[in-house]
């Protein structure tokens, strides 16, 4: 963990961002910043807009109002003189290269071997040579402890293994920001640990910015620089993990944490 929180150079900035699905307001003039290298965990009740924030950043979901900045540049807009115009596909592609995403359901490419899952995008998108991509792919597999699975297909792997491949696949594109949307929610309990260990090792990388949505509160407390509690499309409360987990100020936060930490009460 680091003190990047104090530097004023947000790599991600939501400026009064509005997202609606029909009449349903999912993000309500959201203001949100993440500093370079910061590890931020978003928590909050179902439907509070956590996934939507990540999906907007990954350009999987458009915004209705406001501006999202990544690395100081508008994500969904292009500067045209002094005003902002809607982003072109070319602009989106340029912006996307800074971000990587890990999905709840892994979303590996089922028709490719594990190694091919890691090399396809570097080769096809970045133009890396096949040999180089394979070398890097094997390094990443080593990092996630799956070198012996390189030539298997995703359906031959356990969920935990698949998710570790999912993380390696995103890292293969060398993103500056990693987005994790409930990376362990689809896993059997005994497989959660192996995935969290991989994410934990990434959290030690000083330069990598991480934005994590999870219900693993103990893990969030260990790896995060900051916890944001989302409620109804806004940040209801945020702060250092120890503040949020031990002395939440808001009644909503307290109720939420009580519900997730001791669900049997």
């Amino acid at each position, binding site marked *: 963990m680091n003190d990047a929180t104090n530097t004023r150079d947000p790599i991600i900035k939501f400026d009064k961002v509005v997202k609606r699905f029909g009449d349903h307001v999912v993000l309500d003039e959201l203001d949100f910043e993440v500093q370079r290298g910061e590890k931020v965990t978003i928590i909050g009740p179902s439907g509070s807009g956590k996934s939507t924030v990540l999906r907007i950043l*990954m*350009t*999987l979901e458009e915004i209705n109002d406001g501006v999202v900045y990544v690395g100081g540049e508008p994500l969904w807009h292009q500067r045209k003189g002094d005003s902002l115009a809607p982003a072109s*596909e070319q602009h989106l*592609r340029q912006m*996307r*290269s800074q*971000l*990587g*995403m890990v*999905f709840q*359901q892994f*979303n*590996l*490419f*089922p*028709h*490719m071997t594990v190694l091919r899952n890691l090399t*396809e*995008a570097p080769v*096809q*998108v970045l133009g890396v040579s096949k040999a180089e991509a394979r070398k890097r792919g094997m390094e990443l597999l080593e990092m996630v402890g799956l070198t012996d699975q390189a030539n*298997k*297909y995703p*359906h*031959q792997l356990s969920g935990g293994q698949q998710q570790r491949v999912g993380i390696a*696949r*995103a890292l293969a*594109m060398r993103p500056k920001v990693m987005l994790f949307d409930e990376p362990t929610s689809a896993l059997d309990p005994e497989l959660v640990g192996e995935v969290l260990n991989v994410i934990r090792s990434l959290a030690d990388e000083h330069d990598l910015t991480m934005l994590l949505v999870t219900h693993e509160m103990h893990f969030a407390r260990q790896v995060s620089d900051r916890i944001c509690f989302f409620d109804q499309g806004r940040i209801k409360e945020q702060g250092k993990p120890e503040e949020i987990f031990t002395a939440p100020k808001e009644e909503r936060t307290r109720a939420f944490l009580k519900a997730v930490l001791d669900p049997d009460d």
Partner: protein
Amino acid sequence: MEWTSYLAPLSQGAWVTVQLTVYSTILGGLCAFVFGLGKLSHNPLLKGFSVAYIEIFRGTSLLVQLFWIYFALPIMGQAIGLDLRFPPVVAGVVALALNIGAYGAEVVRGAVQAVPKEQYEAATALNFTSRKRLWRITLPQAIPEMMPTFGNLAVQNLKDTALVSLISLGDLAFRAEQIRNFTQDSVTVYTLVLFMYFGMALVLTACMKLLERYVGRWRAAGR
């Protein structure tokens, strides 16, 4: 006449049927991909044209399409100063291909749309261009889904080739009709022809199954 003496002319006809089937199935497969993807295109012109093609060729009978291409098109061509007379083989292959292509296009469209949207999102997150996303992610997953129906369409196509005998193409059905006219031996001739079509259908089905297994080989890995 001995029934074995029918075999030589019937085999000649069968060979024409095989060629018609192979060429029109391949060309029809091409049409299926072009117009099936065209229907999914965001380009309104391409989309409109694809929809029109699919609807027209699925909504009219093959026989009418065949006659239209073989008899009507040359006359219309003449009116505008173009030579649109085709040899029967070409007219036959084109009519069969366009017909089967229209049905195949719907299969392609359906299979492409059935690829989970999560795959599309994963490819987008990895910054694939829309073209590479289609070729490298969507189609390799969609094609194995199409194969069983494509197999049925290919056999359907084989059976449909019999219609081209009506524009005096010497296929199996045409030869059979010739021999029957000559010998009046309907039972023998049509029984032979029945088995020959059936044999060809079996071989074609086997080929399509092999192809199906090949394009979907990743599904079977480790199973």
